[in-house]
């Protein structure tokens, strides 16, 4: 077990280092330098380069860069908000994204579990068809199509919720982005729950539990769902990815001042340091989730670990 966990951590660290290295190389390859000003004499440029450590060996610069990124010093923004440290921008924007993402996961999981359970219990009825159809649509229709529809219908036509994010009413304005984001979560969880639950309901131990006289509620929640949901952690990684890409688009549609919007603005304004910082944050988030998923899965299902330990 220890070996397995160590192995996973090592791979995660290598991946992170690889990303940092790529970012570092990209940033140094980009044309132009901050000292392109014609009024600077060559001597002044030398002094400036020394001040910012650009005269040191590349390897030293790289380790300096790694240290800065890991300690949360992402440099300053060049274009979006000139000379504002990116960590300041992030501290304003990350919480908004986190809140909306959290709401979307919560709502999506609840709806998905309900739909999936209903579909499995009422197998081959109208409920099943409804649940399956909804989940196919949810998995295949991109969240931004759904977001645009919501923004036009509920936001613009019916005026139930603000069409654009308002700082004054953070909850009411987060309803539409949350709905748009939760669709994928709902669809994949309901699909998953249905498949797993159908398998569990068919098993001998469920028959045994039923013949012991356990009542319906306990039967479903304590015996069936608990076993069906163990492998649910496998879909965590795609969920995180969908939330990240989804946040970029929904935040643009509803002009939410979140982290995704920051990246989009950075891309559109060619603000490289912002892009690099966001790339680093998104990657470390993703790598972190993958690591947790792998380790949890190794603990719960020993077969995974065994395959990893003896490569065939």
């Amino acid at each position, binding site marked *: 077990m220890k070996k397995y966990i160590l192995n996973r951590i090592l791979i995660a660290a290598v991946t992170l280092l690889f990303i940092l290295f790529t970012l570092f190389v990209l940033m140094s390859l980009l044309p132009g330098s901050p000292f392109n000003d014609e009024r600077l004499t060559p001597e002044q440029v030398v002094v400036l380069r020394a001040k910012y450590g650009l005269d040191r060996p590349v390897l030293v610069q790289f380790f300096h860069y790694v240290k800065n990124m890991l300690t949360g010093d992402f440099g300053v923004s060049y274009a979006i908000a000139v000379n504002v440290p990116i960590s300041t921008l992030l501290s304003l924007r990350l919480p908004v994204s986190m809140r909306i993402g959290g709401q979307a996961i919560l709502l999506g999981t609840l709806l998905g579990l309900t739909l999936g359970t209903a579909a499995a219990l009422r197998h081959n009825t109208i409920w099943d068809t409804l649940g399956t159809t909804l989940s*196919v649509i949810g998995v295949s229709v991109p969240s931004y199509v759904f977001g645009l529809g919501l923004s036009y219908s509920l936001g613009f036509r019916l005026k139930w919720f603000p069409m654009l994010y308002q700082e004054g009413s953070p909850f009411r304005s987060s309803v539409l982005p949350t709905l748009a984001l939760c669709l994928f979560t709902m669809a994949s969880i309901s699909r998953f729950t249905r498949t797993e639950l159908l398998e569990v309901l068919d098993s001998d131990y469920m028959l045994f539990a039923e013949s012991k006289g356990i009542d319906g509620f306990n039967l479903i929640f304590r015996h069936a769902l608990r076993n069906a949901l163990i492998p649910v952690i496998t879909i965590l990684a795609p969920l995180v990815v969908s939330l990240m890409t989804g946040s970029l688009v929904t935040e643009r549609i509803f002009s939410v001042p979140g982290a995704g919007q920051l990246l989009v603005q950075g891309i559109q304004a060619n603000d490289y340091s912002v892009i690099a910082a966001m790339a680093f944050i998104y990657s470390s988030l993703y790598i972190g989730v993958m690591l947790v998923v792998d380790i949890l899965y190794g603990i719960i299902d020993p077969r995974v670990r065994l395959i990893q330990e003896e490569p065939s």
Partner: protein
Amino acid sequence: MSSADEEVTLFEPGDFDFLGRVEYSAAEPLPEYSRGREILSRLSKNKGAAVAFCCIVLITALAVIGPMVSGYRYDQQLTGRDNMAPRIQGVERLGLFDGVETIKTSRGLNVVNKYEKLEGGENVYHWFGTDVLGRDLFTRTWTGTRISLFIALVAVLIDMLFGMGYGLVSGYFGGKVDMCMQRFVEVLNGIPNLIIVTLLIIVLKPGLTSIILALMMTGWIGMSRVARAQMIKLKEQEFVLAARTLGAGHFFLIFREVLPNIFAQLLVMSMFSIPNAIFSEAFLAFIGIGIPVPLASLGSLIADSFKSLTTHPYMIFFPVTVLAALMLSFNLLADGLRDALDPKMKGQ
């Protein structure tokens, strides 16, 4: 012993009656077992997949024919014909798509028909309307669909050529080779797709090439895993051993012995990467790093018309519908194909 021998013997010719002869004619062979036909028949019974297939054929046909029959070019700007609402011959008499649009202004609702104001406008038809620059949206939508379909094709090719090859080689050789190749995949897989694409776009100019390059970097990983797993399952089997005993080389074993056995399965797998690829393009266009103007893709059309969502909603309606229909159809068809190929996998 001897008594048993005596009992067993003797049948007289009169003990049996001749009842007639059953004719086995060679003219009626048993129905031939054809895997391809069986899969097709299972697929056509799946209503969702059948509808999806028709939908894909229809969209592809329109993408091919549409720009030819519209009478406009995708980058042709018609002066004075900006923001025209959709108008279609025949249907307009029903009061639908007759070029009338209701614009919400600060002074209340404003009903306009720009075709009436246009000189000689009675005979002008823009089936999907025109955009802010006066370009025909019908032409642009189907030109954009071509790009999405092209990207779908590229995604399958990358899957088949790169992902399959990588997985097969990794699974076949095993040991150290497999170990190195898999660690590389794990590192690559640990980076979110989004980040790879974004970084690539910084280095390259936004455009079709960089989108395809981005797909090439990550799109094949899922396929390579499936191919590797299948290879590991098959490589110890007797027919491979037999071929090896007869002196077949590595290349022959991988591509001529194992591959034909798993090719159908892998082809179906690669269908699943199509919706992903189409979505990636549309997503990139929406955040502003899609293909450059005046080229159109479904994603860039949506991104452009998003700006006039509240004033001219018809502009976004058609591209969004085509995109959603395309992705849904490819997903349904891939699901149906997988179920048809292996009924045990149904519903997973």
